[in-house]
């Protein structure tokens, strides 16, 4: 294909994406700064930010906490599964099947299933015949266990499939090379497999973190009502009867975008430092 038509096709895809991202982000920032009021005159102010300032620290803490815990679990479980998939054999086929089945389940359905499984009157409590009063507060409890597990379960499958896909295309020959150079399985894992997997692990980890930070359904369904994660707070404020809270919802959304941007920047910094990326 000549450069002209190729550029045109790229533009066809890029222009709508740019309009949505830049336009949507600009609209949100403008609304959070009082420049696009639903009623009354436009006036530059940080009132929306000061309006949610008292709740922001606890919301940021719980959102980041959930994202860190979920991402850590997802990367550990998904990364291990990826290594097992690359090793091949029957277990690899089972893991690929499980991963493929898991990523197709919507988070909302997953959250409902986790709730039915982990609640004090859920399947596990009934199976083990534990009275609700003795069952730990996994759903709606102080440690957001059900929320973290739901995200970790779903995102571990995503991490496993992406990392395994990256590794299988390039690692097999390097693994053979390391073996004939005298490296045993553990050494190959430490000196070859993990360093080569690092870029895809960093990328999938960053995607998982940003997704977890920005999505609200799971925390809304399985979490407690206070402190609210940022995403839940933003949706609640946006949907309130009083239209004057919309700038505050936009302000919370801007905070989420800022945190996500920081994480993305950190991920790309790590990637640039990784030898494989260079």
């Amino acid at each position: 294909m000549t450069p002209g038509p190729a550029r045109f096709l790229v533009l066809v895809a890029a222009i709508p994406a740019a309009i949505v991202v830049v336009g949507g982000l600009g609209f949100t920032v403008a609304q959070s700064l009082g420049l696009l009021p639903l009623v009354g005159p436009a006036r530059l102010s940080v009132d929306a930010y000061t309006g949610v300032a008292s709740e922001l620290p606890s919301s940021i803490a719980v959102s980041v906490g959930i994202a860190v815990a979920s991402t850590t679990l997802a990367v550990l479980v998904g990364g291990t599964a990826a290594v097992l998939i690359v090793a091949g054999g029957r277990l690899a086929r089972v893991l690929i099947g499980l991963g493929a089945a898991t990523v197709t389940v919507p988070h909302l359905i997953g959250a409902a299933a986790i709730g039915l499984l982990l609640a004090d009157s859920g399947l596990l409590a009934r199976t083990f015949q534990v009275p609700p009063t003795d069952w730990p507060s996994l759903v709606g409890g102080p440690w957001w266990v059900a929320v973290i597990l739901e995200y970790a379960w779903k995102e571990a499958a995503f991490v496993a499939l992406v990392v395994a896909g990256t590794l299988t295309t390039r690692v097999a020959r390097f693994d053979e090379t390391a073996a004939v150079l005298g490296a045993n399985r553990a050494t190959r894992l430490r000196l070859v497999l993990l360093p080569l997997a690092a870029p895809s692990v960093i990328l999938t980890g960053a995607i998982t973190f940003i997704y977890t930070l920005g999505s609200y359904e799971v925390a809304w369904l399985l979490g407690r009502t206070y402190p609210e994660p940022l995403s839940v707070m933003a949706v609640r404020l946006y949907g309130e009867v009083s239209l004057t809270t919309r700038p505050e919802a936009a302000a919370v959304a801007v905070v989420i975008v800022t945190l996500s941007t920081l994480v993305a920047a950190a991920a790309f910094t790590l990637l640039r430092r990784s030898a494989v990326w260079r």
Partner: protein
Amino acid sequence: MTTAITLQAVSKEFKRHPVPALRGIDLDILPGTRTALLGPSGSGKSTILRIIAGLEDPSGGQVLIDGRDVTGVLPERRGVGMVFQRSLLFPHLSVLDNVAFPLRAAGASRRAARAAAVPYLDLVQLPDYADRNVASLSGGQQQRVAIARTLAARPTVLLLDEPFSALDPDLRADMHGLLAELRTELPPTIVMVTHDRDEAAAVADRIAVVESGVVLQHDTVERIYSRPSCQAVARLMGGRNAVLGVVSGAVHSSDLGQVAVPESAPEGPGVLVVRHESVQLLGRGAAAAHPGEVYTGTVAQVTRNGARRSVTLSRGNAAIEADVPPGVDVSEGSTVVFSFVDGAPSVVPIEAHAAPGQS
């Protein structure tokens, strides 16, 4: 220390491939030899190498290294080094760290491994590239580093799987020179896979010709060229002449005439094979001077290949191809006198299906 490799009735079948890759191969690679496994693509030569290295398990048979059965032994425990067609340098490691890899795998600290790796980098004449990223090296430099890395593992056997086939001719010649220079540093037993007979002759002292999962002949380079065991070997080694005839009393008779062949040639129908380099075009007076040792033929075709020319000579149903020396004038339709270099002709059995173009 020299190391022998023995393959006993080794076979290999891949799943979902109806045709076996190897069919009961027996091969004795003598200690201290440099053996080239030569054959066309898909002949099974790389599979043999991978089975020796332990990267593939044979479907049947045994692999012995120095008399020890290593069938089923993990690659890292065989003491075998291997250089692949692609250099496969680890992209996350510098040049020096790549060479130091086998030493680190053996348990050395990073500092000690790096210090021990430096001499190997010197061996391949890349001492100034230690800190370079491997992606910044040329193809030839990458293969040099791959060789240094393999040598650093101190293998008892070195396996080379078409290591220079991706390089241009000049670089390939450089690498052959490097192997010759490293002769004292290389492990004494080397097995190299190639489909290039010139490379096989340049690097190896013995050649095993492989086709369709079978070793057709394993012998010295000289004998593989001069005494092929069958038409397939002669063809794979670049032989262009095959003349059907009958052997009686160490003489092959055909439309070409009576040609002296080795005493060992079996009586009865057989194919005379003689390399085109061993056919000498003679002056017009030669027939009278050497009756019985010279032959006449009509020039059927003159072919130019760069600066060289070859000529196809026909006589009856027989045809012989010969190189034309510089300065000799030949033209199509003319009659020329030729002879064979002493001892060059030999006889091989008739193939069940003679290849097209062979008389």
